[in-house]
């Protein structure tokens, strides 16, 4: 177990170092000067030079890389070029939208997918199975931004049950915040739930063909009991992997949904910062996301070990 963990930890650190190098140098070679973007077409050369010096853009790239990494190690993510406020503060503000939204969507998708997948697996080949699989096919096929627009049309414009977008802030109350995140969370959750339900079903069906399930059945358990008590736990490994991947996706990949609902999330922050060449914001935010993804994968690896005793013993 210890060796298993140490191995995972080493690969985690190497991943982070490689990621920081790739992020920094890939972003730095994008054409475009942050100072020129900020000052626009009326700017004079001496003004541009003054701004570049103030932003610290006049030093060499390797030196800037080292400054950036050493800053991050001390918890300093730099100051945004355009917003002129600390990047860590900006990320934190956006996290208060993106993290709850991702969690909300993940919970919704799990709540839909688990029963749907289990139901389909237990009714394999019957009408219920076909119905669930048909719906999930639809869920995978529908683009989430289009589904989001439909939701806005129905619930914001016609029924006026929800706002068409925006986020009032948690200081207005927990339920107000949750209310504002509901439509975005549903539109994010639906395709995820569809994928997850399919994975759940096929993983369960694989397990139902295994010897230990047959043995359980032979001992007198009903099909449903065998599924719940023996197959489900084993089917969770592929499902957990997908949940881990989905969470990472939901955290940063909600850009389109954030645009449709004009939410102040991380995805939009990155998007805006790229177009305004606010390089430090892009670099630090992407680095943080990479860190989160790597940590989630690490947590999933540990969860495997918790679910599957063989992993603990072998390593």
């Amino acid at each position: 177990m210890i060796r298993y963990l140490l191995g995972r930890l080493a690969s985690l650190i190497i991943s982070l170092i490689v990621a920081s190098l790739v992020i920094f140098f890939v972003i730095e070679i994008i054409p475009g000067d942050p100072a020129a973007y900020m000052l626009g077409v009326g700017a004079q050369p001496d003004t541009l030079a003054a701004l570049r010096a103030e932003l610290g853009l006049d030093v060499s790239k390797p030196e800037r890389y080292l400054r950036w990494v050493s800053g991050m190690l001390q918890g300093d993510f730099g100051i945004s070029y355009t917003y002129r406020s600390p990047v860590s503060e900006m990320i934190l503000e956006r996290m208060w939208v993106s993290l709850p939204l991702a969690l909300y969507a993940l919970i919704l998708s799990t709540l839909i997918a688990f029963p749907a997948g289990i139901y389909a697996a237990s009714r394999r080949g019957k009408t219920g199975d076909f119905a669930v699989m048909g719906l999930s096919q639809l869920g995978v096929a529908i683009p989430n931004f289009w589904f989001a627009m439909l939701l806005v049309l129905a619930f914001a414009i016609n029924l006026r049950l929800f706002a068409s977008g925006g986020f009032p802030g948690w200081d207005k109350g927990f339920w107000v915040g949750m209310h504002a995140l509901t439509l975005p969370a549903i539109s994010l959750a639906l395709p995820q739930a569809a994928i997850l339900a399919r994975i759940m079903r096929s993983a369960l069906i694989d397990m139902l063909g295994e010897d230990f399930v047959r043995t359980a059945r032979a001992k007198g358990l009903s099909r449903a009991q065998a599924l719940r008590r023996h197959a489900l736990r084993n089917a969770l490994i592929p499902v957990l992997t997908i949940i881990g991947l989905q969470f990472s996706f939901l955290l940063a990949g909600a850009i389109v949904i954030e645009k449709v609902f004009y939410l102040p999330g991380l995805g939009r922050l990155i998007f805006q910062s790229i177009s305004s060449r606010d390089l430090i914001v892009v670099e630090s935010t992407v680095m943080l996301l990479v860190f989160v993804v790597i940590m989630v994968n690490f947590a999933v690896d540990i969860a495997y070990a918790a679910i599957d005793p063989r992993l603990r013993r072998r390593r």
Partner: protein
Amino acid sequence: MLKNLLAAMAIACAGAAAFVSGAAQAKSDITVAIQLEPPNLDPTGAAAQAIDQVLYANVFEGLTRFRADGSIAPGLAESWEITDDGKVYVFKLRKGVTFHDGSSFDAADVKFSLDRARAADSKNAQKALFASIADVAVIDPLTVKLTLKAPNGRLLFNLAWGDAVMVAPESVKTLATKPIGTGAFKFVKWVKGDRIELERNAAYWGEKPALAKATFRFISDPTAAFAAMMAGDIDVFAGFPAPENLPLFKADARFQVLVGSTEGETILAMNHKRKPFDDVRVRKAISMAIDRKAIIDGAMFGVGAPIGTHFAPHHPDYVDLTAKSPYDPAAAKKLLAEAGYPKGFKTTLKLPPPSYARRGGEIIAAQLRAIGVEVEIANVEWAQWLEEVFRGKNYGLTIVSHTEPMDIGIYARDDYYFQYSSPKFKAVMAKLNLATDPAARSALLKQAQTILAEDYVNGFLFELAWPTVAKAGVKGLWLNQPTAALDLTGVSWAK
């Protein structure tokens, strides 16, 4: 039973209706949407128009200011005197003006603001506005004297820009996140990515605004903008991003649609240092291959006024020169043949993100193909455009809207990205810069416009329109955009 229920429902409905109408009467807050969020809140430190849209005239004021019709009015300077040689301006400041932090505004603040903007290490995006100022002197707390290097007929106009607003030395370091001005509205808070809140400044020197509270929101996605208006979440959307939906709002009694004009001359810029655009016949051919109406209808859904030179059509000195380059593909083809390109040529067309460029570019490419010019379209981001086209001058054609007010002077700059160089034009501009007599200025401006049209410097397409969609009860909105601004000081709700 049923009867009772119905009666109860009727009463409830009436109550609700009364409540709603009561609320409407007392309404003194407004939610305004614009497309882009300001990157920061310091109008003197960045070029982004969104900064001025939120803050100009609302939070910050200059010595002079733009009125809704584009004319210049007194701002924090109540009056001024100009010496006969046009080189000395003495401004009388208003009494009793205070900044939002309570400190008083006086001549020392004027000197500080102007000196800061024109200093060697200034980060002002429009530093050129202050280039003619030689010295700023405080005479007494309410009098400031500006001495110029040479007479400048545009000084009062220049001082009205958002980049020339008055700031206090105490608050200047934190303007980017906590703007402190002298305006009718005070900054309350900025939830980044979501909204900026302003509230009425009870200590304002002038007429107090009707609105007690204003919230700015930022929606760039056209579909989201449409949904937000339709759902009633937004009261006013200035610079509505989906012109295709305007007829829908026009037909809906709940809304009003204002289509005004901007200072944005949208042009098909040509690189004069790159063959074959150095040949005036080629430039004329391209100008004549363009069907302005098709572009306005196709790219802007019919909103926008055609232009024949680099000048805003709503300006009193505008000359309609569109007849100099009428749509005539046959004549254009002939011109190309005369210039030595009977089979046409190949070039690049770099398009920045706004829809006027992306959609307009597709149409122009098709129109140019009709006269044999093969256009390779490259979509670029703004930062890329600035780097490759504006600074690097690595392009054949590009489409861009020049939104600075009265910017015809850019054609006098040899190193400007289209690299037009005309001694004749420069001579007219030099005279204009010194002229203070309105009649002489008007004549020179007309002359300058004609030179540009006759040199076919660029393909002059249309003046960018400014569509505003608002709820029916909102009054006092600006129709046009003489400068980037969303002045809320005169806005109110109809009773």
